[in-house]
């Protein structure tokens, strides 16, 4: 009790430096936890996100480019594949579902993707979950100039059922490249927390035959999203062999999760740099506790001498300094969680806007346990140097009148 009282009084007496050092710990802890959580969550989200498809068939290209373009709606399209290629893969006995997609236009920076109604009626982006328009909306009529808008696009551009949009040519928004056609929005999709949320979906034929597009390629598609029949991993390998090794026109990107994992493998060095920076910040923050307490030791010596004269043991003053350092870190970590929430909310908002993938700032990660414990432990260790100084304080010398 006395020990905690001494610590409390000391923290209050040095309130400014306490808050300052707690703030630096908060920043370090918040940063460390955020770096970790963003990495974990984005890794899980991107490698686990396939929109319910097992593979993508597209023009000859890198598999990663194909997946990023067809599943995540990032990256440029590597080119088209002919309609017979689509029919061929659709007819393969190991393929449960083949959904063609075409892209090349945008509306105010958001991609227009042409597809068939199978994308909404047959494909499941998660078990038992399909891309469904909010009532009273509906999916488009394949023969009409109608569009279904992803929830994020609707939210960002303020689009709603009944609105009419003019598509723009290309994947980058350029006001001067407006197409003459207009599309009537007939539905806004329920949020799926997948890249589908940031796409405007129109009939495949509508995109293929948009004014200004090459009439020669009017039947081409950008990619085919493929769902293999259950237990057909061997079929996936065979198809991969067939398209990627034996053929040289097309690329069969399978399995999607593994291809995305390769992306994270490629940017692992960046993760490590971020991690290292976070560790260094943590080290500097705990160092600031050491500096703060150590610098105040001169003024503390008299107080320590008084406490010792009143009967405090050496180990009491030693422990009080160690625990004070740990308490500052604990206080900092409380604020650190607020920092973490703020950083995660901001990052999640950017990631969602850029990819449609949702990161959860409230999701639990093991780092939320060991980062606070680690920082508190490290801070307690940093308190050892001033604590030894306190332990060695010469009572008689420091009680003497100051001349």
């Amino acid at each position, binding site marked *: *009790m*006395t020990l905690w*009282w*001494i610590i409390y*009084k*000391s923290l*209050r*007496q040095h309130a400014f430096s306490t808050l300052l050092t707690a703030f630096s710990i908060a920043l370090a802890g918040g940063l460390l936890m955020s770096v970790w959580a963003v990495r974990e969550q984005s890794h899980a989200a991107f490698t686990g996100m396939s929109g319910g498809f097992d593979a993508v068939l597209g023009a000859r290209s890198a598999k990663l480019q194909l997946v990023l373009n067809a599943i995540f709606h990032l990256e440029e399209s590597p080119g088209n594949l002919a309609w017979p290629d689509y029919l061929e893969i659709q007819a393969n006995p190991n393929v449960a579902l083949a959904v063609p997609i075409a892209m090349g236009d945008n509306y105010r920076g958001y991609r227009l993707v042409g597809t068939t109604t199978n994308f909404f009626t047959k494909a499941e982006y998660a078990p038992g979950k399909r891309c469904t328009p909010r009532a009273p909306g509906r999916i488009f009529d394949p023969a009409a100039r109608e569009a279904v808008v992803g929830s994020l696009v609707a939210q960002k551009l303020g689009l709603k059922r009944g609105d009419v949009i003019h598509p723009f040519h290309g994947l980058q928004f350029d006001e001067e490249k407006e197409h003459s056609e207009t599309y009537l929005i007939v539905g806004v999709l329920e949020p799926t927390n997948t890249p589908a949320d940031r796409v405007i979906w129109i009939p495949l034929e509508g995109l293929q035959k948009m004014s200004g597009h090459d009439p020669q390629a009017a039947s081409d598609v950008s990619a085919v999203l493929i769902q293999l029949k259950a237990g057909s991993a061997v079929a996936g390998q065979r198809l991969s062999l067939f398209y990627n090794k034996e053929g040289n026109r097309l690329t069969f990107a399978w399995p999607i999760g593994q291809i995305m994992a390769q992306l994270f493998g490629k940017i692992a060095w960046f993760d490590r740099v971020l991690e290292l920076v976070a560790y260094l910040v943590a080290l500097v923050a705990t160092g600031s506790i050491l500096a703060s307490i150590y610098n105040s030791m001169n003024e503390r010596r*008299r*107080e320590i*001498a*008084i*406490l*010792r*004269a*009143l*009967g*405090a*043991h*050496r*180990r009491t003053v030693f422990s009080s300094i160690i625990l004070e350092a740990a308490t500052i870190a604990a206080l900092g970590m409380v604020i650190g969680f607020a920092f973490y929430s703020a950083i995660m909310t901001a990052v999640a908002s950017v990631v969602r806007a850029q990819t449609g993938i949702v990161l959860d700032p409230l999701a639990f990660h093991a780092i939320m346990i060991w980062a606070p414990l680690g920082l508190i432990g490290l801070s307690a260790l940093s308190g050892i140097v001033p604590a030894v100084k306190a332990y060695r304080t010469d*009572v*008689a010398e420091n*009680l*003497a*009148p*100051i001349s």
Partner: protein
Amino acid sequence: MLAPNKMRVLEISNLQKSFLTPDRKRHDVVNVSDFFLEEHAHVALRGESGSGKTTFLNLIAGILKPDSGRVAVAGREMSALPEPERDRLRATAIGYIFQTFNLLQGYTCLENVLVGMSFGHGVDREKARRLLDRVGLRDHQNHYPRQLSTGQQQRVAVARALANQPKLVLADEPTGNLDSANAREVLALIRETCRENGAALLLVSHDREALGQFEQIEDFQKFNNNASNDPVVDHL
């Protein structure tokens, strides 16, 4: 002469303490062959500045460890105890009043008394309030030392020294920083409260006015370095 049936609260024999000077020479500061103090006694030690009075009190309080010799407080041999036990004995059996008060600046008057109690017999808020009331600080219990006059600060120190009902109160130039009116008041207060609490008082000072209030005044320089076995202080 030693009065019969009186317990000695302080007994010192062959106490020696020396320090190394900056030029590496050993300087004997305290060399007291025999000294004792009986319960309830009030004794003033007279001595010039630098004569070793404070070192003597620090040796009694166990703040300094003697080079040799024996110090017993309330029947327990302070000099033979391990440091944690010395700390405990100091907290429970000795009250110490300093010239510069040595109050904890971040603590209120009440907290200064309570923190003294916390190392001794335990915190008793009511008792602490009564003590502050007794020294005339009823309305200043939640004031910080910087909000008090020097006289009031020394009163807090007196209350704190008596917080654990010590058998022995050591006062090191307690009026050294006070004007003469305050000095008289504080000194009277120290003596009264020691009497009320049944504590023996050993005060060191070079202030004639302060010393004049004591019936028993001893010259520190006479018994320091005194090799004889005769008690330097003989109580009434």
